């Protein structure tokens, strides 16, 4: 029983990891309508940024804003040079961003070499605190939960409580009408693409100390993030919360009862069934025509 309760706590940290990884993808997908296949690689670039910051003597707290800026800038460059020309052609954005992902992997390998990189956790987040379970709960995982909540709150304010957010939502509802009313829709797309990319960078920076850092690390995060979006529903922050919550808790509990392989399998089956019942996801946004 103790173990099950600890497992529930662990689940929160897994949920937090999923939320951190998925929110950038959700923002870009939900507003700009682009399925960013390079999302995993953006996370990877964020993790390498954290590795460089670490080698220069900084820690995760410094790496978070640096990774946000670096990857937001990268997103901006990608958007201006490639995506802005093909917004209305979803299939081509899919292929183009996939290509960007492959290019990023190769470029990072050329710069940093193929070996795994070391990123440590900040000293003050070493160790953990006692709970009712057998093991102490690591401070770093608590930190991840806090970061996930902060990111969700910031994203909420950017999208729902700011001038920019108002424009963003107007563009999302009806692009043509928003344009007619004087909103520069191209600029909104650009800013939101950069913002979403920056969030992926933050994900890379905070996940690096508990995972391994290599040029191929991005793919599993991209898969997890897509699962969260598909289940939770596209374009809704609540969707991200619900999707991560269900997948994260289900996977930790099922992995504990059975094992990791079966846990993952059952979660995938569950997602397929869920899409059958809610084709737009649990919190899918319904187009008004």
């Amino acid at each position, binding site marked *: 029983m103790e173990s099950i309760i600890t497992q529930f706590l662990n689940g929160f940290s897994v949920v937090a990891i999923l939320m951190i990884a998925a929110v950038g993808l959700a923002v870009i997908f939900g507003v700009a309508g682009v399925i960013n296949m390079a999302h995993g690689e953006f996370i990877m670039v964020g993790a390498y940024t954290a590795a460089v910051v670490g080698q220069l003597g900084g820690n995760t707290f410094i790496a978070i804003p640096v990774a946000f800026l670096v990857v937001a800038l990268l997103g901006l460059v990608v958007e201006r040079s490639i995506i802005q020309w093909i917004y209305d052609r979803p299939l081509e954005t899919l292929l183009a961003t996939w290509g960007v992902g492959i290019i990023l992997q190769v470029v990072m390998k050329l710069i940093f070499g*193929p070996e795994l990189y070391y990123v440590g956790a900040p000293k003050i987040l070493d160790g953990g605190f006692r709970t009712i379970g*057998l093991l102490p709960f*690591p401070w770093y995982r608590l930190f991840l939960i806090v970061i996930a909540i902060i990111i969700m709150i910031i994203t909420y304010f950017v999208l729902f409580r700011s001038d920019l957010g108002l424009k963003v939502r107007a563009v999302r509802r009806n692009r043509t009408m928003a344009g007619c009313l004087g909103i520069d829709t191209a600029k909104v797309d650009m800013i939101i693409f950069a913002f979403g990319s920056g969030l992926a960078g933050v994900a890379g920076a905070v996940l690096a100390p508990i995972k391994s850092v290599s040029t191929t690390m991005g793919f599993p995060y991209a898969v997890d993030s897509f699962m969260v979006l598909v289940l939770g529903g596209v374009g809704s922050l609540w969707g991200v919360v619900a999707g991560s919550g269900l997948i994260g808790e289900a996977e930790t509990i099922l992995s504990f009862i059975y094992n990791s392989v079966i*846990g993952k399998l059952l979660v995938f089956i569950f997602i397929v069934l869920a899409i059958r019942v809610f084709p737009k996801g649990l919190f899918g946004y319904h187009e008004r025509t």
Partner: protein
Amino acid sequence: MNRRKFLKNSAVAAGTAAAATITDFPYFFVKRYAHAAEGDTIKVGILHSLSGTIAIIERSLHNAELLAIDEINAAGGVMGKMIEPVIEDPQSLVQVFAEKAKKLILEDKVVAVLGCYTSASRQSVLPVFEQHNNVLLYPTLYEAQECSKNCFYTGCVPNQQLDDFVPWLIENVGPKFYMIGSNYIYPKETNREVKALLKAHGGEDVGEEYAPLGHTEFSTNINKIASKRPDVVFSDLVGDSVVAFYKQFRQFGITADDIIIGTPITTEQETAAMGPENALGHLTSFNYFQSVDTPENKKFVESYKAKFGKNEVTNAVMEAAYFQTHMLAQALEKAGSTEADALIYEGLPGQEYMAPGGKVKIDEKNHHTWLWPKIGRANETGQFDIVWQRDDWVRPDPWVDLLYPNKDCDFTNPSVLERLKSDSKDRSGTFELS
């Protein structure tokens, strides 16, 4: 002697003289020269991925083999000829391995190939080597249970990594084992033998679990491990999972003083990537560590760093790649011929070499290698302190007696030789004891 032949011969003579004076030059000079004197070199294929997902490890093997070839050529080559490496990049793709192997054998006419890392790539090229009767030298530790006339295996097989390690752990650490591995053939086969050894030596198996390849979220597994309270976590996780598992293990407050991780996988490369603080005190079983204190190893580590960078580390698979290249040179010298059958029946079997990790020998019967098992404890610099080593070398046993008492492989057995001769398609030396 006609004019053309005279010109050719004198060019060769001039070239040989030049080679003797430029042996200190970097490798590409030697290679360029070698191309100029086509036909007067012995071509050896090098088949390791230099791009793609497993390039990380395979490039280091490629480097170790080139280093050995440099050393061989600097010492005068083989049978008076220089060795010319023919390099192919199979891009980490299993099907490309077979294509490139075919190209090396048929187009470049190499005498042997040094190559492959994963079992999947070896299994895809083996039929090519068997069909065209060429020689593959394979440096990786692997799950064994294989035996081919055309392949020589210079890495550890499970009996060399486990037969001493598991009883040592039971005696010095504790009897309760929890096994965790990546979900594919190598960990499953390894754990089968670990379980047999636990049974034979009074150990206890308190859990066994597999994670999907590339899995990096281990909080659940660690929680399960803690609830079972084992003495040893026996890990056959590979790739990205290794680093993530060790990091998260310590973040949950478990150190080597509480539960020791014992593994046949984690090398100096992984301890560097996870940070020495996360590996501290955990145990690895191998036939070689960078910290091995022999003059041969000192020379190997120093020349590797001088050639490829001072931050490079060496590991067991690299050591095998290095010594198998030297053994191939000795075998060519011994056989006095570049024919595949001469290498297979005379040159390579029984070949010995003073490797960095101790003197090694290719077994005459099963084409695997006699090695010196060691147990290393990771220290605060990410290197391994050797806490135990065997005082003699250990015979490779591709079909472990504990699990397969009646199966063996013997290329010296007359009936097997007879079978190989009569059936040109049969390349396996296996037989069942009655």
